[in-house]
């Protein structure tokens, strides 16, 4: 009986491991907005995840099996997103890289709770990381970005206005921005407009907003609506001297093309995730360009999606299987403390995990240290559009405390 016990246990473990696998492969989900207003980010994230899966497989795979990415497009639409999440869960994936947007990540977190670990590269909504312990994100929160934008806005003027989707609820980007304009004698918020998605024109909202004579205007909308706002501004209010403050959503080549590459002569600046530096990012960017023909777009969180795959794969190795709760529990062992390994050291990382070592995955996007709240902390870059292209004006900025 003692002879058969290890064999039985081994078989049981193998069955657990195969719960999310098909034959000799382990499937993980990829939920990205490859259509819709943030498709540039979504497509770059999909590409980066594919690259990570390819590199892991070339370096030996996971648990002796081939890793396969099962991709679904959520179109940044709640109905399509729900169908996509259901399809991935029906497929039996134990972990999902995604989603691109906070809205779909929130939806997926609700649906996937307990069934799959969700690792989003770019869901910045503040409440996401604290709501559910099987959802983590590899980026900082809207609140932090809003505070930084507010502080940059104070440097440009005293009267601020906001144009954004959603509301200015506590924890939102708008609320973080508003902290810098408390309505005291020096700095005040003079207008706050919520925009509906997909309007043909925002001329009316813009005119009413500018009638309050703001010095700075925060624009936190998707690239399609953002481009329409700026085109309406250039058509109707080009004489205005207001300074525009763009959120990370607008750090997108598509936004620039839609406005017109040569049209950015007006006063503006933007904030977005800091472009990583260092050898690991360089290796990632070179491999990305070699495979897809172009560098990963600035502001796309592509490196974060790449790291998400490595983290999930590392957690699988650490857990010796693919059970979602076990993956979540093993993430700190892979991402925090211990001996540092990069994505180019996957075989060594696997060997260390098998030896029971605590490892610290240091990724292409940075340290990806998942904190107790299920998020990471990262700096921002300040950018503007010069000669039709996104130009980084200040690197690795954080809001002042």
């Amino acid at each position, binding site marked *: 009986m003692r002879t058969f016990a290890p064999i039985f246990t081994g078989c049981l473990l193998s069955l657990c491991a195969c719960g999310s696998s098909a034959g000799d492969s382990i499937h993980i989900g990829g939920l990205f907005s490859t259509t819709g207003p943030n498709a540039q980010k979504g497509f770059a994230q999909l590409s980066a995840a594919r690259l990570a899966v390819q590199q892991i497989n070339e370096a030996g795979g996971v648990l002796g099996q081939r890793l*396969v990415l099962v991709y679904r497009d959520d179109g940044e639409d709640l109905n399509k997103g729900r169908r996509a999440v259901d399809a991935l869960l029906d497929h039996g994936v134990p972990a999902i890289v995604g989603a691109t947007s906070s809205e779909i990540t929130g939806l997926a977190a609700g649906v996937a709770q307990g069934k799959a670990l969700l690792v989003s590269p770019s869901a910045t909504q503040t409440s996401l990381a604290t709501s559910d312990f099987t959802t983590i994100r590899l980026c900082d929160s809207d609140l932090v970005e809003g505070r930084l934008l507010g502080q940059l806005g104070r440097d440009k003027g005293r009267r601020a206005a906001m144009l954004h989707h959603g509301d200015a609820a506590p924890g939102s980007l708008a609320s973080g921005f508003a902290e810098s304009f408390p309505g005291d004698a020096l700095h005040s918020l003079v207008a706050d407009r919520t925009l509906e998605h997909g309007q043909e024109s925002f001329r009316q909202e813009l005119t009413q907003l500018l009638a309050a004579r703001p010095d700075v205007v925060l624009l936190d909308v998707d690239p399609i609506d953002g481009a329409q706002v700026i085109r309406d501004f250039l058509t109707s209010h080009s004489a205005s001297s207001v300074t525009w403050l763009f959120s990370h959503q607008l750090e997108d080549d598509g936004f620039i093309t839609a406005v017109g590459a040569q049209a950015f002569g007006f006063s503006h600046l933007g904030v977005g995730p800091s472009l990583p530096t260092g050898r690991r990012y360089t290796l990632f960017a070179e491999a990305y360009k070699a495979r897809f023909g172009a560098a990963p777009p600035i502001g796309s969180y592509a490196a974060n999606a790449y790291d998400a795959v490595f983290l999930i794969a590392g957690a699988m190795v650490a857990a010796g299987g693919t059970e979602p709760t076990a993956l979540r529990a093993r993430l700190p062992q892979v991402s925090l403390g211990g001996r540092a390994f990069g994505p180019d050291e996957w075989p060594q990382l696997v060997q260390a995990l098998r030896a029971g070592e605590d490892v610290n995955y240091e990724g292409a996007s940075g340290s990806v240290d998942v904190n107790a709240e299920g998020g990471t902390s990262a700096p921002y870059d300040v950018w503007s559009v010069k000669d039709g292209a996104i130009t980084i004006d200040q690197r690795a900025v954080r809001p002042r405390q």
Partner: protein
Amino acid sequence: MPAESSAAEPAPAGLDLVEQMEAVEDQLIQMVVSTTKTSRRAEEAPSVVTVVGADEIQARGLTSLADVLRTVPGFYDVYDLAWHNVGVRGVSGGARAAGNVVLVMIDGMPVDDRSTNGNFFGPELIPMAAVDHVEIIRGPASAIYGANAYVGLINVITRKGADVSGARLTVQGALDGSHPGGGGGLMAGGANDWLDVMVAADGLFQDRSGLALPASSPRLGNASDVLSGRGLSLNDRSRPASFFSRARLQRILKGTLSFTASMQSFDSVAEFQDFGPLTHGTRLQRLNQNYRLAWELPLSATSSLSASAGYFHVAPGAAERLDIGRSDYLLLRSASSQGFRAGLEGQARPFEPLDVLLGMDFQLEDHQLQTFDRLYEHDLLAPDGSVIQPAGTTIPGASHGAWASFTNFGAYAQALASLGTDVSAVLGGRLDVHNVYGNNPTGRLGLVWAPPSSAWSVKAMAGASYKAPSAEQLRTQPMAVLDIKGNPSLKAQRAETFELAAAHRLPGGLGEVTVNGFAQVVSDRVEFMQTGLYLQAQNVASEWVVGGELEAHLNLARTLQLKLSATLARTVQRSTDPDLEGLPEVTNPLFPPYQAHLLASWQLPFGGLKLSPELSYVGPRAASQSNALEQGEAYSLPGYLYTALTLSAPPRRLVGETETGFALRLTNLLDQRHAEPGFGGIDVPSQGFTALLTLTQSL
């Protein structure tokens, strides 16, 4: 370069049955010039070729090249009621391609739209009355003709002035559903011992209004999409017009000088374009012009030299408007091209079994890159009522006025050897050097066994070809978000094709059957992918496509001929990412894996009338990649049955010395509607029943 011999002549009346059959057998000896630039019997030509003659065009009442191609094996036309997107052997050009996978020429002169590399397949290409015959090659022809002779080549050979000898008036009446239309044309020609001239022009008006978006359109699945409430197509009128002229002067500098002018005026309301379906305000206009001066000099009995120079220009018409559904403005497109091409070619027979062809050409193109200006239709008002922009204001689009120059130098050589009377072989190659997309070498090898005394002939061919990225694909600005944006790093799409063909002439003049198989490997296949807020043409995949074609001409009785054609084309292997699942796997987008056409020609016993019924079955066509992504999965449009019937009479003397002829063509007799694959979330409806009466009167 026109063929020396025209296609099938009608069998003369008054002969007995044996003589009739022999005459019909003679008709099957078709000469083609496009394959090797020398006139050869079709069965000896080292390519898979179909010839459609003027008599068939007249008898079936065909008014366009698209009509001609409908029943030619290996071809399939997805018509979005503006552009004909012709695909060949399972390969289509994708969104807004207008059949750019084939090279269309008139008398050897390319007449494509140089901004898009797309072709004109509608009545705007050429007055059909001016066509002597059409040579249609399936398979690669880049080894002689260079870019875009990719999976096919179509050479429209025109009549000589001597054949026209006078003037001919054409009057047409049309009916599309319940919408009347019509048109007309004039052709004149003549010749003496030193000059041969032919001039032709025509125009047509059609109204295709009243069509709905097919229910298969992915965007209709979204109830909140504005498309759901746009109703039927309105004022969907097309006004194609064409002009063609050629003059040949003998004994000029010891040679022959010819001047050719060809104009295509494309003018169509476009209700089913991906960028603005059913917005009721899009009208597309392109005026394409090509002029060529050529000089042919016979050096000896076995050698000749020719030189040519040409100018081309294409630009949008003044009435063009693009309606993307905005209430405040329309778009005006800037996309024009002009340039020169020149060529020098020599043919020689250095010794008896070997014919050598050497040539070079140069092309310089200036492209005004495609940009879109905003035209405000109404006063643009501020909330306080003040006018921000008055109606009629045009705001230039991004990069408006930018130009780019393309240059291409090509050199080619071909050796054609006759190994006895039964076997011939061809070996050729060409190198194109382009300043944007680099060097593109191509080649061909062919072996033909066609003994004149045998009923059988066999061909084996292999060739490489390429489709060049167009100026639009490389550099266009988008109209709006989710529209096509240029990809400056796009590479040429390449194909290597292997073909095996056999033909058998049936005994007793009963007809001929040809059958061929092909396998082609396509590399760097171009598809439009959403890579952000825009679609971009990208080199995404490699694939193997295999298939075959059957073509049979059967003389069942003295007065009854049948023509049968069938096509199989299927992608059997496609490069995929083994680490990725979930992308919709679309194979053979826009092209049916199988289709068959049966045509009959029945000489009625009175009045010289001929009845030509057509019956086609077309298999399912896979949706485009962009629609599959929109739908979330691959899907196909169901197969359909197509019917047509033509009653015609060839020109004959009814009154005095003048000749009168007519053709009444009825299409989609059963008024059955089907859908064709579209782009941008929509599929495209087919036309219903149509009737077209064409009267010709010599003057």
